[in-house]
């Protein structure tokens, strides 16, 4: 339950983006309330993801996303060293069939964004079926431990004096006397608080708050995604692989569970949908209601065509999350951050995070507009 009924800034959603924004304002002397629907912070997309600290390699078809990841990478690694996992070798393979880039283009692209890449040793190349793989590159890409990242963020918001209210769902945001009125539901009941600025950082649930507040929905695309958590055979330990680009898969360490995550472009998204104002259903509800039938075997069989040892992986569990994408990213696979300032209401701002390490871009943008908020 919030201590006060009046705040400078209310941030909805204690994912990585919400926590960073809350910390930014609190450190500048603002009275900040951070509301999280669940009992703990960073339990949704900021936990359920492939734990990849992007360094650009993943986006040969969106130079901007690649370049921003490339620029944010060293900053993220320096700022959160405790959660960075780099005790493995990372390889990017270029598929021969149906690939949207070839090895030469990939190498050229890496040079261009300044991302290190070198041809993998023959022993690594041997792990792959040369009929399907044109070339393998060894690259510099790390993973993060989302539990440790959460611990760091918890410490930081505490030190910055952010008031955190867990098990608190924001239901509505309304205009009130030139400011904003926020309706929240906690375990103890319903409350109304007032705020000068409200940041909606609820990722897939952004439109849920908009819908109940009578605000126009933002066009977004949702995918019900599954990432399989597996144990890898000894030959694949200390290694991680991503096959590009088109039909591809990724096998990455998932440090917070001490397992590996397997994702596949075709089988990780189970189905997709867009919002319908008249029959609106919250993506979190869709996720709760989903039968969650695993597609691990399809992922495994297809990936094993490229990397036969994947057949030896043992399935342990799956992570399920609603991936939220901008329809505009469909043509080029970019992952920008969506930032809608003063969206429909004065002082109400929507932020949809694209990538964990791209968080700096939103902080920079807020800082560039600080006269609006501070």
């Amino acid at each position: 339950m919030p201590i006060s009924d009046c705040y400078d800034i209310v941030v909805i959603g204690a994912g990585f983006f919400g926590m960073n924004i809350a910390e930014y304002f609190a450190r500048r002397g603002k009275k900040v309330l951070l509301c999280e629907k669940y009992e703990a912070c960073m339990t949704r997309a900021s936990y359920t993801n492939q734990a990849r600290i992007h360094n650009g390699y993943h986006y040969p078809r969106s130079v901007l996303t690649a370049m921003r990841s490339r620029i944010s990478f060293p900053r993220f690694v320096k700022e959160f060293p405790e959660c960075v996992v780099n005790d493995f070798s990372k390889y990017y393979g270029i598929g021969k069939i149906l690939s949207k880039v070839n090895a030469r283009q990939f190498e050229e692209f890496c040079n261009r964004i300044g991302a290190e890449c070198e041809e993998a040793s023959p022993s690594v190349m041997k792990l792959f079926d040369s009929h399907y793989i044109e070339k393998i590159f060894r690259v510099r890409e790390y993973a993060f431990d989302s539990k440790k990242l959460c611990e760091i963020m918890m410490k930081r918001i505490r030190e910055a004096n952010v008031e955190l209210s867990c098990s608190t769902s924001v239901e509505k945001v309304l205009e009130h006397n030139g400011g904003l009125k926020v309706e929240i539901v906690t375990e103890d009941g319903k409350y109304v608080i007032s705020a000068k600025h409200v940041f909606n950082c609820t990722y897939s649930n952004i439109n849920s708050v908009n819908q109940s507040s009578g605000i126009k929905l933002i066009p977004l695309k949702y995918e019900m995604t599954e990432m399989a958590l597996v144990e890898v055979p000894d030959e694949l330990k200390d290694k991680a692989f991503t096959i590009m680009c088109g039909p591809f898969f990724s096998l990455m360490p998932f440090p917070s569970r001490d397992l590996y995550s397997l994702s596949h472009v075709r089988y990780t998204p189970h189905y997709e949908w867009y919002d319908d104002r008249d029959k609106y259903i919250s993506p979190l509800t869709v996720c709760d209601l989903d039968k969650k039938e695993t597609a691990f075997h399809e992922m495994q069989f297809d990936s094993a065509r490229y990397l036969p040892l994947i057949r030896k992986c043992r399935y342990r569990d799956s992570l399920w999350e609603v991936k939220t994408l901008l329809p505009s990213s469909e043509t080029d696979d970019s992952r920008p951050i969506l930032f809608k300032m003063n969206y429909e209401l004065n002082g109400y701002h929507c932020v949809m995070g694209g990538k964990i390490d791209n968080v700096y871009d939103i902080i920079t943008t807020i800082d560039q507009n600080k006269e609006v908020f501070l």
Partner: protein
Amino acid sequence: MNKIKDIFVSAVVIRPDRNNILDFLTHLSDILASHYAHYEILLMTTELGESAPDLDIDDILQKIKHIRAIKLFRDTTDDVLFAAGIENAIGDIIVCSYQEFLTEKNVIESVNLCCEGNDVVSGVFHTKKPFWYRFGSSLFRKLFSQILSYNLHPDDAFFRCVSRRALNAAIGTRHFHRFVFLRLSNVCEKKGYIDLKLSSDEQLRKPHFLDSFSRAISLIIFNSTTPLRVMNLSALLVCVISFLVAVYTVVVKLIKHHVVEGWPTMMLVLSFLFFFLFLILAFMGEYLVRIIFDTNQAAPYHVLSEKHSSVMLNYDELNIREDSVSSEINLTQTGRDR
């Protein structure tokens, strides 16, 4: 002010002209920067002989951003330069031509058409060509367009705007570097055409008889075995005829007693047969040469050097969007297939 399209366009300049290159590149990069969020310019050159001085690449790279200069070994044809240029470009959409065709109108119009879903946009330039060219070209089209799937426009010019997916599909085809235009035109779902305008004071490069002839012969030899089959059939037919002539000669010899009378016929038959024999041999010989060429595993081109501008990327641009949907049409689909 123009609305900047959120796409990556590569402009490839084949054999840039030394004399006004700086002005041209400054103008071209202004056009690209004012219309597209990301761009690069590739300069495709070859090593020149002693007498002709090279472009001052280092000067260009210092003065203009987003330039890559690729230099190939000397004996590279323009078609191979073209193929090498588009193959090494990294944009979603690639515009490639000679300097004189890379005008603002041509670039913008072709990229727009490409974004509307035309995987390959060809430039068409209406100009009065020499008689031998018109005659040869129409004869070639009549005889071979069907068997070679040759569907290039009669006024096709050395200009293409290509989507990444069409390029990637074409790269995988046989002899891509040699027949880049034909391969591009055969892999795309939808084609577009634009009427090219020359930048005012430029002169168009004229077709050379030998170049055009050798290009036509290459097209026939590399893309179809039909002529060989026709020749083989003719050889068979001539065999039958020569056999019949032999029978006729024997019959004449048996019926008539004056051998001298058969002398002119013999001469006629012999010269006729030898004519065909040598024609067939010539064709077979040509095929053999091509096979030898083809089985030669040498790379289609050799890169001598590649340099680029010190500034290639805009490091200050943030990855933030204000809208989740884009108002621009972009059907080139470099993202996931759907």
